[in-house]
C-alpha cells in the first residue's frame, strides 16, 4: 500500500529513535548520540524523497510536479499581469490566425472530393493564349474527335451551361441549367440522393426530356421537397420530367440549379451546335482508362489535338497558339484558391513566428530578472530538470491561455477567411469549424511552450550565484534579445512591403481611367427570357427606354449586351471579321474585334466619345441598310489613313450566319469592357435595332442613381410582368465589385502587417526597456561625468533605430530569398516597387521611434545619486 507523507515521517522518526537509543546503549553520551542521529537526519530527507519515488513512476512524478509548477506559475504570473497579458494576446493572434487559415486550407485544398476515384477524374480544356483566351471550352466536333481517337481516357463527360425559363417551380423563373450527355454523371462519379441521374438512355433526339436537380437548388429553393421528383415542368419550349436529386458535390464548372439531358435544349440539337467546330461552349471531363496516368492522357490528347489542328486549320488560326491541357479535376478546382491560401498560410506562419519571437523576448527578459531566484533554487538543490519545469510550467500557462483565446478568435475568423476564399473556390463556402481547429491551436501552443521554456539559460548550482538580486545582463542575453527583435522587424518589414505592394496595385487599379462615365451611369441586368417576349421584343424595349427616359433625373437611356467588367468573358475572345476591299498581307491573320450590340445613345450614356461619323439612330432597323460602328483601335489598324467611314465589314465566323455586309457609319474611342485597367479594345458595335439581343440597361442620371432603381423597375414590370430586374449598380460600384478580390487581398495582408507591426513595436519597446533598466547604473555614471539627459535619450533612440535598420536589411535580403524559394511553388510573384518598400521602411522606423521613446525617456530621467547608490 502506498504510504503517505506521515507514514514516511513516522518510519524515519522511528528509525532515528532506535538509532539514538542504540548509540546510548553503546555508551555514547545522550547529546553526542543525538547529534550523530541528527547528522544522519540530513541525509534522511533525501532518503525520504527516494522512498516516496519508489511508489511513483517517473513520468507520473514529473507530471505531478509539473502540475505544482503550473499552480506556482499561475500565482507568480498574477504579479506580472502586464507581461502575461502581452504574451497571451500576442500568442492568441498568432495561433488564431494560423488555426483559422489552416481550417480553410484543409477544406479547400486537402479534403477529397465526393466524386468516386477522384484521382482518375480529369478536366480537359483548350486555350488560345495568342487570343488572350485561357479557356475556350470545346465544340461538339472536337469532342467527337477526342472520343474517337483518345484511348488513355475511357469515357468523356461533357457539360455546357444555358439558361431556361422554368415553369413549374412556383413562380416562372430563369434557371441556370447544365446540359449533359448520358456519360456525364458516370464520368464524374456522382450519385443521386433521390431518384436517378441522367444516363445513356437519355441520349439521342428521341429521348424524353429529363432534368436532375442540384442539391443546393433542391434543398434551398425547393425546401427539400421530395414530391418534386416525377413532376413535369416546362423548360423553355420543352416539357421535362424531374428524375432525381444530385448528391451535394462541388459544382464545377458552373454552379447550376438543374442539369438536363441534351434533347432538352433545342440549341444543343441545332446544326450550329452539332457541326460547328468553332462553336465552343462545352466543358469536357474524362475518366482515365485503367492503367493510364494523367501524363499518358495529356500526351495522347495533345497528339490527337495536333492532328485535329492539321485537319481543320481554318478553325485554329496560328496566332492563337492553340493548346490542350488536362489536369486532375481536384487540382483544377483548388488551383485558383491555392496561391492565395498558401500566401495567407505563410502570412499567418510569419505572424506566428513574430509572435513567438516576441514572447521569447519577454520571457527571456523575465528569466534574466529572475536569475537570482533561480540561482537560489539551484543552490538549494533543485535539479536543472526542476528549474526547466518551473519555466515550462509558466510557458504552458501562458501558451495554454494564448491557445484558448486564439481558438476563440479563430472561430469567427474562419467565417471571414472562408467567405474570402469563396471568391476563388466554391469549396470554401462549406468550411466548418471542427475539432481540427482546436488541435492545430493546441499543437502550436505546445510548440511555443516547449521552445520558450528552453530558450533561457539556466544558472547552475556549481556556478557562483550572483551576490545580489539586481539584474545582471550578460552580453549573450542582450544579443539574443536583440536578435529576436531584429527577426521581428525583418519579418514585419516583409509583411508590410507585401501589403504595401497590394495597396499600391489596388490604388493604381482604382485610379486607372476607364474611358467611361463612372458615377452617373446606373446599370441593370434585365435577363429577359427571349422566347417569352417574341416578336414584340423590340417594341417593348423601346417602350421601356422611352418611359425611363421620361423619368425626372434621367439624362439618357440605352441598352446593350454587356456590362463592362461584370460580364467580362461572357462573349469569349474577339471574333474574326473582314473588310471589303481589304486584303490581308501574306500570312497576316484576319483581324479580330469584340462583338457588341448597343442601342442608339449608348455611347453618350456611357461617356464614350464619338470620334467620327454618327451614332446609331432609330432608322437603323431590320430591313434598312446594315450598319456598324468601330472602335478607334480597329480603325487605326485597318485604316491608318483615317478613312474608315463607309467601308463595309462582315463577321467571318459561321456563328453569325452568312456574309452580311455592314457599312461603317461611325468611329468611337476605345473602351475596354473586359479589363478594369484598359488596354487596346478593338470592338465593333452592332445596332440593337438590327440585332435585338440586349439584356443590359444603362441609365445616365443627374442625381443619385440609386433613387431611380425603384421607378425603373416599376416601368419594366409594367411593360413586361414577371420580368426580373437584377444587380442594379453604378459603373463605379461594378469596378469596386470586380476589384473586390484585390481589395480583400490588400486588406487581409494589411491586417496581418498591422498585427505584425504591433507585435514588433511591443518587441522593440520591451528590449529597450529591459536594456535601459539593466543599465541604470551606466546611465548614472554617464550623467555624473557630464552627459546630458538629451544625449542619453538620443542614445537609446539610436539603439532602437539600429535594430530597425538591421531588421530592414535582413528583411530585404530574406524577402528576396523567400520570393526565390516560393517562386517554384506559386509561380513568379510580383515585386514591390520602391514606394511600398520605402513606405514599409518609413512606417517601421516611425514605429520604432515611438516604441523607443518611453524607454529613452526613462534613461534620460535616471537619478544620478540613486543609480550610483544602487550597487
Amino acid at each position, binding site marked *: 500500500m502506498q504510504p503517505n507523507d506521515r*507514514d514516511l515521517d513516522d518510519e524515519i522518526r522511528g528509525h532515528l529513535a532506535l538509532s*539514538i537509543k542504540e548509540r546510548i546503549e553503546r555508551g555514547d553520551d545522550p547529546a553526542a548520540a543525538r547529534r550523530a542521529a541528527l547528522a544522519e537526519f540530513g541525509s534522511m530527507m533525501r532518503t525520504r524523497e527516494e522512498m516516496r519515488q*519508489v511508489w511513483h513512476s517517473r513520468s507520473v512524478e514529473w507530471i505531478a510536479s509539473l502540475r505544482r509548477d503550473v499552480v506556482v506559475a499561475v500565482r507568480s504570473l498574477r504579479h506580472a499581469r502586464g507581461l502575461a497579458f502581452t504574451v497571451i494576446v500576442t500568442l492568441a493572434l498568432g495561433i488564431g490566425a494560423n488555426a483559422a487559415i489552416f481550417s480553410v486550407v484543409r477544406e479547400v485544398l486537402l479534403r477529397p472530393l465526393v466524386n468516386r476515384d477522384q484521382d482518375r477524374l480529369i478536366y480537359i480544356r483548350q486555350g488560345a493564349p495568342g487570343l488572350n483566351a485561357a479557356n475556350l471550352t470545346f465544340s461538339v466536333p472536337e469532342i467527337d474527335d477526342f472520343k474517337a481517337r483518345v484511348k488513355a481516357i475511357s469515357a468523356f463527360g461533357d457539360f455546357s451551361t444555358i439558361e431556361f425559363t422554368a415553369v413549374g417551380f412556383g413562380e416562372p423563373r430563369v434557371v441556370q441549367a447544365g446540359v449533359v450527355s448520358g456519360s456525364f454523371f458516370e464520368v464524374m462519379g456522382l450519385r443521386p440522393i433521390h431518384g436517378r441521374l441522367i444516363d445513356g438512355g437519355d441520349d439521342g433526339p428521341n429521348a424524353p426530356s429529363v432534368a436532375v436537380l442540384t442539391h443546393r437548388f433542391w434543398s434551398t429553393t425547393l425546401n427539400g421537397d421530395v414530391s418534386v421528383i416525377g413532376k413535369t415542368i416546362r423548360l423553355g419550349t420543352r416539357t421535362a420530367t424531374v428524375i432525381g436529386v444530385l448528391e451535394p458535390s462541388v459544382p464545377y464548372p458552373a454552379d447550376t440549379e438543374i442539369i438536363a439531358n441534351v434533347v432538352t435544349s433545342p440549341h444543343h440539337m441545332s446544326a450550329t451546335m452539332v457541326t460547328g467546330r468553332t462553336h465552343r461552349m462545352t466543358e469536357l471531363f474524362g475518366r482515365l482508362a485503367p492503367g493510364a496516368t494523367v501524363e499518358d492522357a495529356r500526351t495522347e490528347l495533345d497528339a490527337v489535338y495536333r492532328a485535329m489542328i492539321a485537319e481543320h486549320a481554318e478553325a485554329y488560326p496560328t496566332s492563337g497558339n492553340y493548346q490542350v491541357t488536362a489536369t486532375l479535376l481536384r487540382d483544377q478546382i483548388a488551383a485558383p484558391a491555392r496561391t492565395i491560401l498558401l500566401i495567407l498560410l505563410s502570412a499567418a506562419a510569419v505572424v506566428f513566428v513574430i509572435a513567438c519571437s516576441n514572447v521569447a523576448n519577454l520571457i527571456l527578459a523575465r528569466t534574466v530578472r529572475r536569475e537570482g531566484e533561480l540561482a537560489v533554487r539551484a543552490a538549494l538543490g533543485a535539479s536543472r530538470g526542476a528549474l526547466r519545469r518551473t519555466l515550462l510550467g509558466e510557458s504552458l500557462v501562458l501558451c495554454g491561455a494564448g491557445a484558448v483565446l486564439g481558438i476563440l478568435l479563430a472561430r469567427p475568423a474562419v467565417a471571414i477567411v472562408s467567405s474570402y476564399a469563396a471568391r476563388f473556390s466554391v469549396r470554401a463556402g462549406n468550411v466548418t469549424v471542427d475539432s481540427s481547429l482546436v488541435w492545430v491551436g493546441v499543437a502550436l501552443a505546445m510548440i511555443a511552450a516547449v521552445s520558450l521554456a528552453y530558450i533561457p539559460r539556466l544558472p547552475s548550482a556549481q556556478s557562483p550565484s550572483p551576490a545580489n538580486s539586481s539584474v545582471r545582463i550578460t552580453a549573450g542575453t542582450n544579443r539574443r534579445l536583440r536578435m529576436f527583435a531584429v527577426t521581428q522587424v525583418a519579418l514585419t518589414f516583409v509583411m508590410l512591403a507585401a501589403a504595401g505592394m497590394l495597396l499600391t496595385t489596388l490604388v493604381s487599379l482604382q485610379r486607372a481611367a476607364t474611358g467611361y462615365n463612372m458615377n452617373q451611369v446606373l446599370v441593370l441586368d434585365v435577363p429577359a427570357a427571349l422566347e417569352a417576349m417574341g416578336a414584340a421584343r423590340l417594341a417593348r424595349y423601346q417602350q421601356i427606354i422611352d418611359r425611363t427616359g421620361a423619368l425626372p433625373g434621367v439624362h439618357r437611356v440605352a441598352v446593350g449586351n454587356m456590362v463592362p467588367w461584370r460580364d467580362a468573358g461572357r462573349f469569349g475572345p474577339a471574333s474574326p471579321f473582314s473588310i471589303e476591299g481589304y486584303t490581308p498581307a501574306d500570312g497576316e491573320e484576319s483581324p479580330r474585334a469584340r462583338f457588341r450590340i448597343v442601342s442608339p445613345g449608348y455611347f453618350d450614356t456611357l461617356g464614350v466619345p464619338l470620334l467620327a461619323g454618327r451614332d446609331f439612330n432609330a432608322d437603323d432597323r431590320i430591313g434598312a441598310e446594315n450598319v456598324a460602328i468601330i472602335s478607334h483601335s480597329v480603325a487605326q489598324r485597318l485604316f491608318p489613313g483615317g478613312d474608315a467611314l463607309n467601308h463595309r465589314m462582315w463577321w467571318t465566323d459561321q456563328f453569325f450566319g452568312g456574309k452580311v455586309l455592314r457599312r461603317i457609319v461611325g468611329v468611337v474611342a476605345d473602351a475596354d469592357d473586359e479589363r478594369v485597367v484598359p488596354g487596346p479594345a478593338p470592338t465593333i458595335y452592332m445596332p440593337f435595332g438590327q440585332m435585338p439581343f440586349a439584356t443590359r440597361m444603362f441609365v445616365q442620371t443627374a442625381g443619385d442613381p440609386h433613387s431611380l432603381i425603384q421607378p425603373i423597375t416599376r416601368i419594366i414590370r409594367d411593360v413586361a410582368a414577371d420580368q426580373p430586374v437584377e444587380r442594379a449598380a453604378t459603373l463605379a460600384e461594378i469596378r469596386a465589385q470586380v476589384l473586390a478580390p484585390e481589395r480583400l487581398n490588400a486588406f487581409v495582408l494589411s491586417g496581418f502587417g498591422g498585427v505584425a507591426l504591433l507585435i514588433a513595436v511591443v518587441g522593440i519597446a520591451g528590449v529597450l526597456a529591459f536594456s535601459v533598466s539593466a543599465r541604470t547604473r551606466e546611465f548614472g555614471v554617464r550623467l555624473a561625468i557630464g552627459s546630458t539627459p538629451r544625449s542619453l535619450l538620443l542614445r537609446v533612440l539610436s539603439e532602437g533605430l539600429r535594430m530597425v535598420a538591421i531588421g530592414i536589411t535582413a528583411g530585404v535580403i530574406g524577402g528576396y530569398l523567400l520570393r526565390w524559394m516560393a517562386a517554384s511553388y506559386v509561380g513568379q510573384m510580383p515585386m514591390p516597387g520602391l514606394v511600398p518598400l520605402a513606405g514599409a521602411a518609413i512606417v517601421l522606423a516611425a514605429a520604432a521611434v515611438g516604441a523607443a521613446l518611453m524607454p529613452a525617456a526613462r534613461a534620460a530621467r535616471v537619478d544620478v545619486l540613486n543609480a550610483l547608490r544602487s550597487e
Partner: protein
Amino acid sequence: MAKTPEDGRLELLQGTLDMLILRTLQWGPQHGHGIGQTIAAHSDDLLKVETGSLYPALHRLEKRGWLKSEWGTSEANQRAKFYRLTAAGKAQLLREQNRWSQLVSAIGRVMNPARVDKD
C-alpha cells in the same frame, strides 16, 4: 567487494541488498533499523547497510509484493513499521539464493582456476 579504506567495511555488491533483506526477514518480522542491525551483526560488522539505501529498498520490495508491512511499536516505544516476508517474497529469496551460489561458484572458478584443477 572492495574494502573502503577508513573502517575496513565492505561495500555491498549491486543487487545483493534485496537478497540480504529477504534473507534477514526469514527469521521473522522486523523494522528497518532492526534489519540493518541484523545484517551488520551476521556479517561481523563487515557489511554496513546505509539507511539511504535500506529504506528505499524496503519500499521497493514492498511495492513488488515480496514484503508486507504493518505498524507496531519498537523497543524505543515509538511507532515503527515492521516488514514481513510474503509467499512471493520467499519464492524470490529462493531464486536469488540459487543465482547467488551460481555466481559465486562461477566467479570462484574464474579467479582460482588452479584450485579447481586440483580438485
